[in-house]
């Protein structure tokens, strides 16, 4: 059991490191097209995670993805965002250029805390998926009264 927990914290640290590295390269990646710069299927969609005390807030860049083509899976502190971006070519049009092709994607994260999956909210608006993930009771910050 303890060994498993150790593994988890190591993986969590590695995730954090990878994300830091990704943001380091961000400035150099001026185009969004796959196959250019540093973006690979490993880092799509891009995400931001912040901690507001009671909640974790995750934002993912998912322009052109429909709500019904998006799937979010959550278990403890493991989060998986997967889905597909459908081709959007109206009938009768000739294609000159496609820089963001239709593709399936999947990305998983180890969140820094366990969250209460029943109370998670997610909205997709303007091409951004915004999730509010309430921390599980044990993970919340707590005021300790001194006797």
């Amino acid at each position: 059991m303890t060994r498993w927990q150790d593994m988890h914290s190591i993986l969590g640290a590695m995730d954090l490191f990878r994300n830091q590295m990704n943001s380091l390269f961000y400035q150099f990646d001026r185009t969004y097209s796959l196959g250019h710069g540093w973006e690979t299927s490993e880092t799509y969609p891009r995400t931001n995670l912040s901690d507001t005390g009671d909640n974790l807030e995750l934002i993912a860049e998912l322009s052109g993805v429909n709500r019904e083509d998006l799937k979010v899976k959550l278990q403890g502190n493991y989060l998986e965002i997967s889905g597909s971006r459908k081709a959007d070519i109206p009938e009768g049009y000739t294609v000159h250029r496609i820089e963001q092709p239709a593709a399936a994607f999947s990305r998983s994260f180890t969140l820094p805390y366990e969250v209460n999956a029943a109370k998670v909210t997610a909205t997709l608006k303007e091409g951004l998926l915004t999730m509010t993930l309430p921390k599980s009771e044990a993970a919340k910050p707590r005021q300790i009264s001194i006797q």
Partner: protein
Amino acid sequence: MFMNENQAVSQDQPTEPVRQLPVITPAVDILENEREILLHADLPGVLKDDINIHIDNGKMTLSGRRRLQMTGATAWREFADAEFRRIFAVPQNIDVGQVHADLKEGVLRLHLPKSESAKPRRIEITAG
């Protein structure tokens, strides 16, 4: 109407943003049929009012600013506030006054209709 508004704005000197935002080239799809050229641009997180399209002298500048609402302490960050900007050459046969656009799911769909004279036409041959 959409275009006129933007043209009016761009006649003034563009005001420099207080803080220089990183500039990102948005990914685009370019499609065409007999009636129009259709451009799709990925602008995740950009609101309608923060998009500016300016056509002048055969050049179209598309720009949009993204302002994210960020709260709390950052655990990781892979994207940030940015300016999406890209310049396109617009063919002569586009009817600039008829250009219109809509924004959905972070994708801007810009319709550039061809002028009447540029549309394919069937020429009737009259018997002499």
